């Protein structure tokens, strides 16, 4: 099993992701700088980590989405490699057009950092099979712009096609239809605002995040 974590200037959860994947799975993890024009061969999972790429200038994730490495991430996703964007990584995936919608300022304009309970509304995706029994997960959110937005018709479409994977039980940021995480149409690209990388063992308050990495790699 082989994973890569992409490192953008301003990423601050890249190490967390590496440690979370290593401790919750048997995968080795390479760190890949955003200027790279090739990815390591034989990857099963690519993670875009949380943080503040490019200082959140212009829009969160906007500049990172144009990084040289993103052309490779897109190509890998088209080949079917699993891609997970966490927090800022989710914003990057939306900005790159790899996921529908966008993330707006939180409804109350506050940065929110706390544990949240999520309903796992689709346990059939390659990222969520580990939640089949519980159908819920506790993870930490830490964001100022986690308010998921899409046009009503788009929301209807992604809901209808089972692309909504995680929903907040108690919506912290105003996200449309309580959406916390979605997959693309093909089901191999996931974006979510909560941090599985901050919730992968009991000492962190929750080990539920480990199931996400385990599911992603079990399906590879």
């Amino acid at each position, binding site marked *: 099993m082989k994973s890569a974590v992409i490192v953008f200037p301003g990423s601050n959860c890249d190490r967390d992701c590496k440690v979370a994947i290593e401790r919750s799975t048997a995968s080795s993890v390479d760190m890949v700088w955003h200027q790279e024009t090739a990815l390591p061969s034989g990857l099963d999972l690519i993670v875009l980590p949380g943080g503040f790429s490019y200082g959140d200038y*212009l*829009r969160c994730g*906007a*500049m990172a989405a*144009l990084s040289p490495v993103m052309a490779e991430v897109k190509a890998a996703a088209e080949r079917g490699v699993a891609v997970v964007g966490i927090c800022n990584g989710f914003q990057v995936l*939306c*900005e790159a057009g790899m996921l*529908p*919608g*966008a993330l*707006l*300022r*939180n*409804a*109350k*304009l506050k940065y929110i950092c706390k544990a949240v309970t999520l309903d796992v509304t689709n346990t059939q995706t390659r990222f969520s099979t580990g939640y089949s029994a519980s159908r819920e997960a506790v993870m930490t959110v830490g964001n100022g712009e986690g308010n998921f*937005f*899409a*046009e009503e018709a788009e929301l209807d479409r992604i809901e209808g096609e089972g692309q909504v994977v995680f929903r907040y039980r108690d919506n912290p940021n*105003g996200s449309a239809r309580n959406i916390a995480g979605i997959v693309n149409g093909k089901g191999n690209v996931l974006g979510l605002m909560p941090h599985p990388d901050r919730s992968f063992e009991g000492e962190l308050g929750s080990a539920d995040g480990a199931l996400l990495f385990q599911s992603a790699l079990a399906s590879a």
Partner: protein
Amino acid sequence: MKAKVHVFLKPGVLDVQGKAIEGAVHTLGFGGVSDVRVGRMIEFDIAGTDRAAVEAEVKTLCDRLLANTVIESYRVELI
């Protein structure tokens, strides 16, 4: 040529910053103020003399980077 690009959230997208400012404006007693929107203005120099061609180039740049057309609309001014 100098280009000025004005970017705002689309009318259907709730502008929470605008709402917060509107609340403060009302606190100051300016009750006649409504529909406050917060956007950004980006200006830059751009080479070229053919106005239509430059405008098309700036619009391409807006679509690819300066605005996220899922949530924002933009207006281009050339001076």
